[in-house]
């Protein structure tokens, strides 16, 4: 984990959560810019997981190694699944779906930061 990158993920995911809620409240399906933004969040999240995986291979050992690995894998599948799920039926709730996934990414990144802080 690179702490600064994790905070970038958290900030981007936070924006995606708010964006999804805003379009849901406005009763609009997610627009193109919003979907592209979600894709951007996903790319940064994937980069984060790859860097963290490389650090694990290089010998970094968080206290809960197995949990860390599970989170690094789980965190990258949330947005793609939500993206597909949101696009099968496009409505205000598509934005909610993206918001839920982004909130998951945000929470998991926070948890990863805590786990990583314990690394020796």
């Amino acid at each position: 984990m690179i702490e600064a990158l994790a905070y970038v993920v958290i900030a981007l995911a936070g924006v995606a959560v708010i964006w999804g809620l805003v379009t849901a409240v406005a009763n609009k399906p997610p627009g193109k810019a919003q979907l592209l933004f979600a894709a951007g969040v996903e790319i940064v999240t994937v980069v984060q997981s790859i860097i963290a995986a490389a650090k694990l291979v290089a010998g970094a050992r968080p206290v809960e190694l197995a949990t860390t690995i599970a989170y690094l894998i789980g965190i990258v599948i949330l947005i793609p699944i939500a993206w597909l799920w949101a696009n099968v039926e496009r409505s205000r709730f598509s934005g909610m779906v993206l918001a839920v996934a982004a909130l998951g990414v945000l929470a998991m990144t926070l948890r990863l930061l805590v786990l990583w802080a314990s690394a020796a």
Partner: protein
Amino acid sequence: MTGVPTQPAGSEVRGTSSGAGRALVAVYGVFALAATARASVQLLTKFEQAPLAYLLSALAGVIYIVATITLARGTHTSRRIALIAIIIELVGVVSVGTLSVLYPEAFPRATVWSAYGIGYGFVPLILPIVGLAWLWHTRAS
């Protein structure tokens, strides 16, 4: 299943995965992923530390998976399975939540349902109530 369909497929029943149901399925999906991943790690690496808590975590994960899939499918049969799963979920979170407050020594490690899901913003307590309300809202009448 051998039950006689009481309505033409997909016509009168408002699907459980449509409209607000999509957001509900998304929340269930996230919990299915989170609870199952956590429980798998706990069971595989430190089962002996708190077998009861970790088995309950695994049960919660399975129930979330079943609820996610059945709500997403929304057929007549899957609605029934969803109803059973969500009732078990509600009973689970209320009973485990209460027991974990009264007898914390029996739950040395947190589960998704400990203290009514306080570690997950009480979403585990709210989710089955919303799920039951949604099944009621989308019922065939």
